[in-house]
């Protein structure tokens, strides 16, 4: 496999979001429209310039409804990506491929939901009707025994990882504490000014052992949109382009949706390894070149796995890598400076991409000094995706 032909040729030029809340009081479609409108304005383009739209297959808001709402007009590219939060960086990849191929000039990626006041993902699949199709047949191994929620699916893998690698609940807590520390100084974060201690983490109630409440991300109402175009076009726009040095999707051997329990070991995320291989090869960069990382944090354990799969440390050593403030602002590899999905908001990974854009632009609230390059990941435990973003060097 060789480097992607579109690597380094496209850029993120606009970001827009609603507030992040627990009860938006508006429809999911309206949230989507607000975020897309804000992202288009941030990019300095007109709605009619947008030729493509990408979202998640789990999003309930049709691209055409947003297009009609904002007078976007003709669309020449529209696409939806499966696997929940695994789609996040994949939407940007689709957009980059489309603009690079000349299929559309500007593509908007978006995700919008009332995931706290409406359909709560944390409740899991308890109400799923047993319609006979392959996705439900997959769940047949878990639903009748009561393994119903994302927290439980992650926990069953994490218990093995912790057992083999000697990682503890306190190690997971280090990640939660770092995220909440960052959120505490981010006014957009739900947990603004609410840092936690490791003791708070340990004292929080069990959700699914070995996961405490504070190992689990929030549920959020809100929307995030992102505008992608070619690097060439980006030069004429208000913001300095945030170059997509690499964008990749990955599914690995023995892949399953959240329940890949039958692989040789349960100690990695092979799909993230597939993503990492492409990111480093296409960008010509490696983990040592990254000034920071946005790592998908719906549940803390998979942050450890990701550090290993991306090559920041060796297998099984992430629990030691994260110690001593290394992943906090000011450390060697700050992660999730916006507070992550534990601290800022759970926008299925899209708010993390926006944070990476702000970091590269240089005006994030928790700015990493001198940041030039950053890696972003999408949902873990599912087929996933990733990005390497940088200044226009």
């Amino acid at each position, binding site marked *: 496999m060789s480097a992607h032909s579109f690597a380094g040729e496209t850029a993120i030029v606009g970001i827009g979001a609603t507030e992040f809340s627990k009860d938006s009081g508006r429809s999911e479609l309206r949230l989507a429209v607000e975020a897309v409108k804000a992202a288009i304005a941030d990019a300095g383009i007109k709605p009619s310039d947008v030729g493509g739209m990408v979202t998640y297959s789990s999003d309930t808001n049709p691209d055409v409804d947003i297009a009609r709402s904002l007078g976007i007009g003709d669309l020449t590219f529209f696409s939806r990506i499966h696997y929940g939060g695994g789609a996040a960086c994949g939407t940007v990849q689709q957009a980059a491929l489309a603009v690079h191929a000349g299929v559309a000039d500007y593509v908007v990626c978006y995700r919008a939901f009332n995931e706290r006041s409406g359909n709560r993902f944390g409740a899991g699949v308890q109400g799923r009707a047993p319609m006979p199709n392959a996705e439900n047949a997959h769940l047949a191994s878990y*639903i009748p025994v009561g*393994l119903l929620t994302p927290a439980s699916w992650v926990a*069953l893998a994490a218990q093995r990882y912790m057992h083999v690698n000697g990682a503890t609940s306190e190690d997971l807590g280090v990640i939660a504490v770092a995220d909440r520390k960052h959120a505490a100084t981010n006014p957009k974060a739900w947990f603004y000014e609410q840092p936690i201690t490791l003791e708070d983490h340990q004292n929080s109630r069990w959700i699914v052992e*070995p996961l405490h409440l504070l190992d689990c991300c929030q549920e959020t109402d809100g929307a995030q949109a992102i505008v992608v175009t070619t690097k060439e076009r980006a030069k004429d726009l208000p913001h300095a382009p945030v170059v997509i040095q690499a964008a990749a999707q990955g599914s690995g051997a023995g892949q399953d949706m959240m329940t890949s329990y039958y692989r040789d070991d349960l100690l990695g995320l092979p799909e993230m390894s597939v993503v990492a291989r492409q990111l480093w090869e296409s960008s010509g960069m490696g983990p040592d070149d990254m000034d920071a990382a946005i790592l998908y944090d719906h549940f803390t354990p998979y942050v450890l796995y990701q550090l290993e799969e991306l090559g920041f440390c060796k297998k099984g050593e992430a629990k030691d890598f994260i110690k001593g403030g290394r992943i906090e602002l000011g450390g060697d590899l700050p992660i999730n400076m916006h507070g992550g999905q534990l601290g800022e908001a759970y926008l299925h990974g899209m708010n993390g991409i926006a944070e990476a854009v702000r970091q590269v632009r240089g005006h994030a609230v928790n700015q990493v000094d001198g940041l030039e390059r950053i890696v972003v990941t999408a949902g873990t435990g599912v087929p996933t995706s990733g990005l390497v973003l940088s200044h226009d060097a």
Partner: protein
Amino acid sequence: MSVDHSEALAALVGMSTGFPTVALDLVNEPMIRHWAEAMGDTNPVYFDAVAGVTAGLGGIVAPPTMLQAWSMVGLTGTLKRESSRGEKKDLENANDTMMRLLDEEGLTSVVATNCEQEYDRPLRPGERIAMRATIETISDVKKTGLGVGRFTTSLSEFFSVDESFPSDPSLRDAALAKAERVGTMRFRILKFAPQASAPAKPPRPKPALTQDNAFFFEGLNEGKLLIQRCTACATLRHPPLPACGKCESLEWDTIESKGSGEIYSFVVVHYPQVPSFDYPLPIALVALDEGTRIVANVSIDPEHIAIGQRVIARIETFDNDLSLPVFDLDTGA
């Protein structure tokens, strides 16, 4: 029962439940015919005057069981009385008072237990019927299959009256003293406290079955824990898939697992709690000795479950229609 109204209830026994009432309609042929048709009673004495005469009844008569029907107040009248109950206590009659006291005792549910009627003579079209009801008995608190409660009996007496029967309700009791009684009815109810029963546990959510995975659940229903096997290369696989990831063969059969294995990983679920399950809920990923892994319930104390424990499966049936393997600690016994 936190409240005991025994004394107040005893004082109600023998009291009239209100002024005597008079039927809205005279005994009449159309209502007799509708009743007999609804009941499927084809006795000609209810339709045919000649048959009535022949039978020595002097003409058409009303079915005896219509006795109470003549005196009923109708839907609207019933609603009026119910809306007045409890709102204005000065309008309460003895029956209202009895029901309120029983409600206050916590005996809020009601079931009719029996009804006995006695007929003094047949009723004929054109007769006017009046009715007087009294509270005959109120029992002590009894334990019943439905819960604790009191039985109450009301005695209704039915009279044939003429057009001189007073329209002033307060004069009716005196008028009945001279009237001819035509029948009586004893109506017994149980007022009881509904038993607080635990909400029934809803059944476990069912697996979605396709042509690919149905064999696994059918095997469990027959008491077998099956593992899919590629007939081309003999590779075992679980969960079920239509083809072999090793050799692409679509051909497969199954082997029956011995059910022995060890805990490869596990969780203990605390939240969210779904009513079909008991919490904390331990669930294990079991590495079967045959080589495949399976996610299953375990009957091991959540405090003591651990990776590496040897376990053995038994097949348990839930809700009469779902069989699943449940793993116990394998003590080697």
